[in-house]
């Protein structure tokens, strides 16, 4: 359980003259936010366990610029993007995986026209790929038969049309997947996107995350599954506001897989 994580950096690989199979883009939340760091670690545990040859940029990674762009600061966004692209291109990176849908969307869609063309996948897509190849075996474990509802991150679902990979992973865990009133194309936002995470909400009669959490609670779940560190924070806060933190866990899909594997 407490064995050390093996997290090689691109710089180390470069020094050895090697290229990893894939670059793991950790993202700001995954690097610094206490809750999101657990997701990062769960993902790395799985990668380590099945021997995926990956590396991170470590201290050479920087914000993709998503919040700046969505706040309207195109200058700052493009500065960030071009700095990152320079680093990625200097390592000749071809394939990237990330556990953050915002990083995923930005690198996938907004980097190419600035000179950064990579094949990037969301971690749920990556894990599903490993599962299809037979490298990752997922079995029920702790969540078998539990009622789980999955919250679609806007930038993975509507933004890029990926609704199935995370659901297929959950089904493999033998959970009872229950859908919220608004899901998939109609999925309701957690309230964090568009740089809202970094500011107070405008005047209204409710917080968006509480509204979404109420929809989740209506499905009477044992846990809420998410695929985004920001959604995770929002839903966790929502569950606390509703004083349900003892009944309902909020977990990333990859944490559920790691839990099932007892990692």
């Amino acid at each position, binding site marked *: 359980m*407490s*064995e*050390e994580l093996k*997290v090689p950096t691109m710089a180390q690989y470069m020094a050895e003259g090697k290229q990893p199979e894939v670059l793991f883009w*950790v993202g*700001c939340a995954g*690097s*610094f936010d206490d809750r999101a*760091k657990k997701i990062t*670690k769960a993902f*790395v545990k799985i990668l380590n366990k099945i021997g995926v040859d990956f590396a*991170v940029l*470590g*201290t050479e*990674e920087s*914000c993709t*610029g998503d*919040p700046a*762009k*969505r*706040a*309207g*600061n*195109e*200058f*700052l966004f*493009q500065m*960030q993007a*071009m*700095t990152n692209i320079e680093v990625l291109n200097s390592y000749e990176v071809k394939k990237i995986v990330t556990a953050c849908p915002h990083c995923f*969307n930005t690198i*996938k*869609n*907004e980097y190419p*026209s*600035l000179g950064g063309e990579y094949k990037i996948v969301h971690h749920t897509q990556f894990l599903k790929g490993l599962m299809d190849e037979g490298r990752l075996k997922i079995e029920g474990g702790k969540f078998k038969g539990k009622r789980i509802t999955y919250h679609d991150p*806007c*930038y993975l679902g*509507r*933004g*890029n049309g990926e609704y199935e990979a995370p659901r297929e992973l959950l089904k493999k865990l033998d959970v009872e997947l229950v859908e919220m009133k608004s899901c998939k194309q*109609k999925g*309701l*936002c957690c*309230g*964090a996107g*568009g*740089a*809202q995470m*970094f*500011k*107070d*909400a*405008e*005047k*209204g*009669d*409710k917080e*968006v995350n509480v*509204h979404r959490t109420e929809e989740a609670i209506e499905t009477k779940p044992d846990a809420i599954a998410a695929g985004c560190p920001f959604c995770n924070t929002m839903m966790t806060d929502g569950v606390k506001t509703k004083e349900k933190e003892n009944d309902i866990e909020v977990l990333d899909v990859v944490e559920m897989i790691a839990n099932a594997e007892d990692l």
Partner: protein
Amino acid sequence: MQFIPQILFLLALGFGLVFFARNVQRMRRNIKLGRDLDRSDQKDKRLSKMLRVAMGQSKMVTKPIAGTLHVIVYVGFVIINIEVLEIIIDGLFGTHRVFSFIGPAYGFLIGSFEILALLVAVSVILFWIRRNIIKIKRFILTEMKGWPKNDANYILYIELVLMILFLTMNGADLHLQQVGAAGYAHEAGVVGAFPISQYIAPFFEGMAEASVIVIERAAWWMHILGILFFLNYLYYSKHLHILLAFPNVYFSNLKPQGEFRNLEAVTDEVKMMMDPDADPFAEPEAGDEEEMPEKFGASDVQDLSWFQLLSSYTCTECGRCTAECPANQTGKLLSPRKIMMSTRDRLEEVGEGLNKDKNFKPEDDGKQLLDDYITREELWACTTCNACVEACPVGIDPLSIIMDMRQYLVMEESAAPSELNGAMTNIENNGAPWPYNQQDRLGWAEEA
């Protein structure tokens, strides 16, 4: 004497079409105030999206009740218009049911029109009930007070009246054909089939032939004048979508919804800043000046693209976007539908200025889209979740307008909310929106 009705008809038709052409012209002029945007690519994909979404109404039916009723009214509208062609020819040449020469198929056509007309009338009544009695929430939100509410109802009234006139006209016509009235009787007997109006025809029995002719003529005239009125009402109404839904879907965004456009002018500048060899004092290359926009983002309608302006005219004010909007659902001021309505209102105001003086500039009246029509509070409430874009049945992207206006606020006015300024400073200095040191980015790996 006998040509007078034909001449009057020609005048009415000519007047109706000229007025309509003038409105289309004004609309084109207003839309062209917008910035360039290249949507001339991928013609096949655009065409098939148009067939699917606009013609096939694929997004309408995601709400089954409204969707089905809408498909009925839409199909009815399109098909019954074939009959309008006959009405125009009859009107111009003084003929009676000129298409009847095609034989039994004519009966089938008229019969289908009648059945559709009844279905349209029923649907329109149900639509009215949804708006005015059940008061479905998206129809009664704040931006739907006053004109937008009345507009929606007027259209329903016009459509209902048109259908009633059409059926009355047919009923009277059938009666006149049956009694062999001059100008109505055909050698072949009764032409056309009248599955619905056959129940109206008996009301005319016992009436003087001349009176029935008056009723038939009155219904005929009011029906066609009503259609000409409707055609010209469109420009002032959310009902423009019956024409503009097609080009709007055709020119809509084909890229993933998550992708926001990168501003090329910014790219050039950032490249300059990052290039150690660049000479900051170098003369700009010839032609470069044109590419540099006068301002970043949008504070008024002419800063938006022509497509966004086209969309403002296309918006049906259905509120499907607003009903899905997380900000609106939680009581924030933001409503993506209102973003589109405000854009159109401001564009019309600028258009009015241009009608009076063709050298009018949007700056001249001291008003603009930002603040006078769309407040900052609305703009900052958006989570960029794309729910509105996904929901829109006619390919409108209200989010793109919100983003363009945010860009103006941040890049031209440095007017972001202060917490956001903090986050942006952090990104600039530490490479993360929080005040952590970039050197600690791998800290998690040691924590195990």
